[in-house]
């Protein structure tokens, strides 16, 4: 088969798997697991073949027009360059791991068939976004991901947190998608085509009339999808979904889509200095804020969620300094270790029976219960903290190196201010990242107190996947030498000495300071007993997690917060802790800015409907009702009254008839 045909099959197979899974879920439950895993695995194999055949050479372009659609044509188009090929392989790897893991994680879940089908659909939509060469087709995948995330985040819809989180995820991303759609239209109007190649050609020849406006509109959609400030608030709440979904959304799909989109259309953004500055500031604020917030979270998955936001900040930072090679490199390595972190967190939550770090820090020997999760999570956290030689170090250094290049004026592609912003924010965030990674590791695995509950080994499907993902978390960094630059723009991705020393230095400082703080506070842990574990620790992991999510707010007073004086994050953040735990009150701001006005508008409409419109309706009904009341009074039930009335009427009629007959 030609490479084009193989590439078409890559998004198509999970889609067919999803359709078959939805149709057969009830009638043939035995086929659900193969139908979930095998198409994804097959599309991973095909994506690998496509990537090998493409080999980072000339981009593969293919297009077929379906039907004339008026002014600007919409075509089913493929555009596979080195970025697309590698990101598709990442999506395939993570999706396969997540599907395999889910067979163990949700093995007793009654809604597993629809869950697996939606994950397949999600994967297929992301692969469509990755391979698409036409912006409208890309938008289709983009929106399918939006609706799938709504369903998947709300998988535990019995809990109010999950219902609220799914609606929030959908609405917040839609808030960005509306400007995004307008931006796409504006871009296509200027370029005369939705084809990415033609758009890039137009940009190269300077044919773009409103680069800043278009870039900022597109940026809104990207901020929503990739959870960048100020539209990131949906992502921590999306932790109410099952852990494999979090891994899928956070590692390879959904949030990666926004970064990948900018990487594809980077010349459009680079055409506007203002957009690049905005991108840099957005990245810097996102990185710093999420780093601080991650240090204050109590839910292990929310820590990881904020870390995802921060790492995405690195990627947008790399894009702000016009180095998409570094951005996609970090996307790849982050995809591997973040998927690993989430899947390991799922195992830990199952073993501990709680998602609260405060409760875990009061359990002894949790790491002995889940040795696989312990070792793989240690690897992933080291990669997250960018400690050499793990993959995160190389990709993060490539970002910082690119920022340094721009800041010192070596390249002219991006404004120097953007370079400085990204570099400084990136270094501070490296410190914060190491600090919260260290805190998570210490609280989860170095707890002291009563032994963690023991309910046997975790399912094999769940632990094998962890080791499968640990390999790329260790080894992807080596690709920075020689291999990856060929696939990407050919820019050097190897770490430079200055940023390596600075980045690793601040990371080590962050880790050591957190360790010292933990040593200082850990004595307090025994004095303040805390913690609640799931009611059914022997159930499957999904049930344990749903119970943990449902019980967190009633036990600790909030989904993100626990009154734990032994938390090193509390000591490190000081008075900032209270604000960081709630994400710096951004939800409250949104509540005041959007939710309240909408609710006020709704109550106004309700008032108009109830009091104004209904008044006319009631007024129209009043006259007949009064007449009815008058007539009803005659109905006394006394037959003799009726007969009297009949007689009176007869007499009147008779008299009238006589008068008429006599002509009077």
């Amino acid at each position, binding site marked *: 088969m030609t490479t084009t045909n193989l590439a078409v099959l890559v998004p198509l197979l999970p889609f067919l798997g999803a359709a078959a899974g939805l149709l057969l879920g009830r009638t043939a439950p035995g086929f659900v697991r193969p139908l979930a895993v095998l198409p994804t695995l097959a599309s991973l194999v095909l994506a690998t073949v496509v990537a090998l055949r493409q080999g980072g050479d000339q981009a593969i372009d293919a297009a077929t027009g379906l039907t004339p659609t008026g002014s600007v044509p919409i075509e089913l188009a493929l555009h596979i360059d080195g970025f697309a090929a590698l990101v598709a392989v990442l999506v395939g790897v993570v999706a396969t791991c997540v599907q395999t893991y889910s067979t163990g994680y949700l093995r007793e879940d009654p809604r597993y068939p629809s869950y697996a089908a939606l994950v397949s659909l999600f994967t297929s939509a992301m692969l469509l976004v990755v391979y698409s060469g036409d912006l409208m087709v890309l938008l289709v995948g983009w929106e399918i991901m939006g609706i799938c995330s709504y369903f998947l985040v709300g998988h535990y819809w019995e809990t109010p947190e999950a219902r609220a989180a799914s609606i929030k995820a959908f609405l917040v991303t839609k808030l960005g998608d509306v400007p995004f759609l307008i931006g796409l239209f504006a871009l296509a109007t200027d370029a005369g085509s939705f084809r990415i190649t033609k758009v890039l050609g137009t940009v190269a020849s300077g044919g773009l009339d409103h680069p800043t406006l278009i870039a900022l509109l597109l940026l809104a959609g990207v901020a929503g999808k990739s959870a960048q400030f100020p539209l990131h608030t949906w992502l921590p709440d999306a932790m109410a979904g099952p852990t494999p979904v979090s891994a899928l959304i956070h590692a390879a799909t959904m949030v990666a889509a926004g970064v990948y989109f900018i990487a594809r259309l980077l010349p459009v953004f680079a055409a506007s200095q203002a957009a690049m500055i905005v991108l840099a500031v957005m990245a810097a604020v996102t990185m710093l804020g999420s780093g601080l917030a991650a240090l204050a979270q109590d839910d292990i998955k929310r820590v990881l969620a904020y870390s995802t936001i921060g790492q995405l900040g690195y990627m947008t930072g790399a894009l702000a300094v016009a180095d998409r090679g570094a951005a996609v490199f970090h996307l790849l390595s982050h995809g591997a270790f973040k998927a690993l972190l989430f899947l390991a967190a799922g195992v830990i939550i199952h073993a501990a029976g709680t998602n609260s770090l405060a409760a875990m820090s009061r359990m002894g020997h949790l790491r002995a219960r889940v040795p696989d999760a312990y070792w793989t999570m240690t690897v992933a956290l080291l990669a997250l903290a960018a400690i050499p030689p793990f993959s995160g170090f190389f990709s993060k250094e490539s970002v910082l190196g690119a920022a340094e290049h721009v800041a010192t004026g070596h390249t002219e592609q991006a404004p120097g201010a953007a370079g400085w912003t990204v570099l400084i924010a990136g270094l501070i965030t490296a410190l914060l990242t190491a600090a919260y990674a260290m805190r998570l590791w210490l609280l989860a695995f170095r707890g002291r107190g009563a032994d963690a509950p023991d309910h046997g080994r975790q399912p094999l499907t769940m632990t094998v996947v962890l080791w499968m993902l640990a390999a790329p978390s260790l080894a992807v960094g080596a690709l920075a030498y020689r291999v990856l630059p060929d696939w990407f723009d050919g820019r050097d991705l190897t770490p430079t000495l200055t940023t390596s020393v600075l980045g690793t230095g601040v990371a080590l400082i962050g880790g050591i300071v957190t360790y010292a703080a933990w040593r200082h506070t850990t004595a307090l842990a025994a004095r303040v007993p805390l913690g609640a574990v799931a009611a059914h620790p022997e159930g499957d992991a999904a049930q344990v997690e749903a119970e943990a999510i449902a019980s967190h707010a009633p036990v600790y007073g909030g989904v993100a917060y626990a009154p734990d004086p032994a938390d090193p994050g509390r000591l490190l953040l000081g008075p900032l802790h209270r604000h960081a735990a709630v994400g710096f009150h951004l939800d409250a701001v949104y509540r005041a800015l959007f939710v309240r006005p909408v609710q006020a508008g709704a109550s106004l409409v309700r008032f108009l409907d109830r009091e104004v419109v209904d008044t006319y309706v009631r007024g129209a009904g009043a006259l007949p009702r009064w007449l009815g009341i008058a007539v009803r*009074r005659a*109905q006394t*039930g006394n*037959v*003799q009254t009726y007969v009297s009335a009949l007689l009176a009427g007869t007499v009147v009629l008779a008299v009238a008839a006589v008068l008429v007959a006599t002509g009077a």
Partner: protein
Amino acid sequence: MHLAYPAVLSALLFCTGLYGVLARRNAILVLMSVELMLNAVNLNLVAFDVWLSKTAEETLHSGQALTLFTITIAAAEIGIGLAIVLAVYRNRGTSDIDKLRDTAESHDTDGPDRDALTAPQAEKAEATA
């Protein structure tokens, strides 16, 4: 005999019956009053038939034939009426017309909602009655 005598008699009978129907409380007496009114009409029919047949060449005496019909039907009617009154008396312990007001519109009903609400109650009342 002059026509005025039976006519006046029947008018008196009719008025007596009418009074009985409108004023008596006992259902049986009301029925008897209805009979009085019927018989007043019968009397009229016979009297006018005789008066008309005096001048006619030949006649079918249809008025008197109609009287026979009326008497027959009145007998059937009074049978059914008395049976109903008996049944009502057995059910309610009274045959007082003033107290048989089930068809009355209750005074507190004032809107469509309340009608819907009282409908099952009314059905229940009928069922127990």
